[in-house]
C-alpha cells in the first residue's frame, strides 16, 4: 500500500519536468522523429499520386476518357488507346483467379479441416515458401517449362474438345492470355491458401462440434457451417490476390506475347498494362507516348486501390465477426 502511493507520488513529481528535462529524456525527440517518419510516408504516397496525375495530363487533354475505350496503339501516328491493355490485364487476372480460387480454397479446406495438424503445418510452411518465390523466376519457369508443356499437353486436347468455341480458337503460339493466366494462378494460389486456411481455422471449434453432434458428416459441417462463417475472410483473401495479379509485371511480360490487340480467343497473344509499361517506358520518347503509359499506370493504381479497399472491407467484417 505504502509502496504504491510512493510510486504514484514519484511519478507525479517526475512528470512535472521542465521542457529541457523532457527533451533530455528523449520524449519530445522520439515523438517528433517518429511523427516525421509517419508524415513522410504520407508525403511519399502523395508524391506518387501527384507524379502519376501530373504526367498523365497530356494524354488526358488529348483524348479524354476516350483513351480508355480506344484500341488504337500507334506510337508512329501518335495515337494511343488503353483498351487492349486494360482488356489483357483483366483477362489474365480473371483467368488466374478462376483457376486459383477453387484450387486454393479446396486446399485450404483440406489443410484446416481434414489434415492432421502436423502434416498441415508442414505443408502450410512449404506453401508459404511458394509465395516467396520472386516473380521473375515464375517467368523463367513460365517460358521454359510451362509454355512448352501447355503447347504439347494442354492445348491439343483443349482445342480438340472445345476448338469451336471462340475462347479456344486460332493457332496457339505459346505466348498467350492462357499462358499468362496459368502462371498468375500458380503465383497467387499459395496466398489464397495461406489466408483462407487461417480464416477457416479461426472458426470456433464449438460450431463444428455442434454440427457433428447433430449427425452431419465432416464435409457437410465444412460446407454448411464452417465455410459460410469464414466466407467474408476468404473473399477478402481473394480480392487481395486479385489485386496482386493485376499488378504482376515480370511473369506476365515474359509469357503473354506482347501483342497490343484485343482477341476473344484465350490462345491468342495479348498484353497487359504492367507489361507494356515494362517494355516501352524506357524508350517512350515524346510527351504523348510517355503520358499515355503513365495514364495507364494511374488506371492500374486506381484499380488496385479499389480492389484492396473491397478486400479490407471484407477482412474488417470478418474481424468484427470473430471478436
Amino acid at each position, binding site marked *: 500500500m505504502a509502496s504504491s502511493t510512493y510510486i504514484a507520488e514519484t*511519478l507525479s513529481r*517526475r512528470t512535472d519536468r521542465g521542457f529541457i528535462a*523532457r527533451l533530455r529524456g*528523449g*520524449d519530445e*525527440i*522520439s515523438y517528433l522523429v*517518429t*511523427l*516525421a*517518419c*509517419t508524415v*513522410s*510516408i504520407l508525403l*511519399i504516397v502523395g508524391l*506518387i499520386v501527384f*507524379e*502519376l496525375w501530373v504526367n498523365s495530363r497530356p494524354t488526358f487533354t488529348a483524348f479524354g476518357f476516350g483513351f480508355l475505350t480506344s484500341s488504337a496503339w500507334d506510337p508512329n501516328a501518335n495515337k494511343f488507346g488503353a483498351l487492349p491493355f486494360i482488356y489483357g490485364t483483366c483477362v489474365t487476372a480473371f483467368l488466374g483467379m478462376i483457376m486459383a480460387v*477453387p*484450387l486454393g480454397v479446396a*486446399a485450404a*479446406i483440406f*489443410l484446416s479441416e*481434414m489434415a492432421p495438424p502436423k502434416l498441415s503445418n508442414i*505443408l502450410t*510452411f512449404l*506453401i508459404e*515458401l*511458394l509465395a*516467396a*518465390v*520472386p*516473380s*521473375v*523466376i515464375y517467368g*523463367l*519457369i513460365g*517460358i521454359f*517449362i510451362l509454355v512448352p508443356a501447355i503447347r504439347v499437353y494442354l492445348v491439343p486436347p483443349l482445342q480438340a474438345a472445345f476448338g469451336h468455341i471462340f475462347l479456344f480458337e486460332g493457332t496457339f503460339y505459346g505466348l498467350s492470355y492462357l499462358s499468362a493466366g496459368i502462371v498468375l494462378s500458380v503465383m497467387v*494460389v*499459395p496466398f489464397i491458401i495461406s489466408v483462407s486456411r487461417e480464416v477457416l481455422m479461426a472458426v470456433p471449434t464449438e460450431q463444428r462440434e455442434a454440427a457433428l453432434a447433430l449427425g452431419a*458428416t465432416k*464435409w*457437410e459441417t465444412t*460446407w454448411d457451417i464452417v465455410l459460410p462463417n469464414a466466407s467474408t475472410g476468404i473473399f477478402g483473401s481473394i480480392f487481395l490476390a486479385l489485386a496482386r495479379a493485376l*499488378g504482376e*509485371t*515480370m511473369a506476365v511480360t*515474359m509469357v503473354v506475347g506482347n501483342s497490343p490487340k484485343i482477341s476473344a480467343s484465350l490462345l491468342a497473344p495479348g498484353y497487359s498494362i*504492367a507489361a507494356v*509499361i*515494362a517494355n516501352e*517506358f*524506357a524508350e517512350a520518347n515524346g510527351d504523348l507516348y510517355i503520358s499515355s503509359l503513365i495514364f495507364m*499506370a494511374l488506371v492500374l*493504381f486506381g484499380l*488496385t*486501390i479499389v480492389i*484492396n479497399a473491397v478486400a*479490407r472491407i471484407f477482412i474488417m467484417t470478418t474481424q468484427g465477426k470473430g471478436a
Partner: protein
Amino acid sequence: MMMEISGTRRFINSFMLALSGIATVLVVSVLFFILGYLLIHGASSLNWDFFTKLPKPSGETGGGMANAIVGSGKVLLLATLIGVPIGFLAGVFLAEYSGKSFAFLIRYVVDLLNGVPSIVIGIVAYAIVVRPMKHFSTLAGGTALGIMMIPIAVRTTEEFLRAVPNNLREGAMALGATKATTIFTVVIPAAISGLTSGMMLNLARVAGETAPLLFTALGNQYWSQGWLAPIATLPVMIYNYAIAPEDDLHQQAWAAGFVLLTLVLLINVTARLIIARGPASQRR
C-alpha cells in the same frame, strides 16, 4: 437414437474430402516441381566462373554474374537503409504514440502504398531520381526498392510492438523511465525476434523484384563504382538472359535463378524459425 448417415451423404463426404486432398497435392507438387527443377537445372549450371567473372560480350561464352550478385547486394543495402528506418519509426509512432483516428488514416495510406504495383514505383523513382540526376544509378534502384519496403516495415513493427504486453511498459514507467526510454530499451528489445524476422521477410520479398529496377538501375557490364552509376542486379540479368536466344545465357539465367531463390528461401526459413523460437511462442 442413432441417426444413420445415408450412403449418398457418406459418399459425398469421402468424395469431397478426396477432392480437397487432390487440390492440396496438386499445389504442393507444383512447389516441389518448381524448386526441384530450379535446383537441378540451376545447380548444374553453377560454376566458379558464374560467381567470379563479369559478363562477356555477345557471342563469347564463359561469362559470369559476379557484378550482378554484388550489385543486388548494394541495391538491397541501400533499399534497407532508406526504407526500414522510415517504416520502423512510423510503426513505432503507430504503436506507441498515435491517436485512434490518425492511426486509421496512416494505416489506410500505408496499405495504399503496399498496393502500388511495383512497376509504378519504378516509374516514380525514374521521375524523382533518375531524370533530375541525369543518370541511372544504384541510388535510384535503392530508392524504388526502399519505398517498397516501407509498408511491410510499418505493419510488422506496429504488430509486434502492440503484441508486447502492457505490463512491461507500465513496469518501466513505474521505475521512472521516460516514454522514449521505455520504448527503445524495453518494448523494442522485447519484440526483437518478431521485428527481425519481419525485416528479413521484407528483404526477401524485395530481393526478387525486377520491374522497379528496369528503369532505375538499368544495368552494367562492369563493376559499378560508387552509388551513382548504373548497376547490374540478379533479377534483371535473369530477365535479360531468359529472353535471349543463346543457350549459354539461358544456363546462366537458371544459375542466377537458383542463387536468387536459394537466398530468398533461406531468408524466409530463417525468419520463420526466429519467430517460432522467439519469446512469443515461449509464453504459454
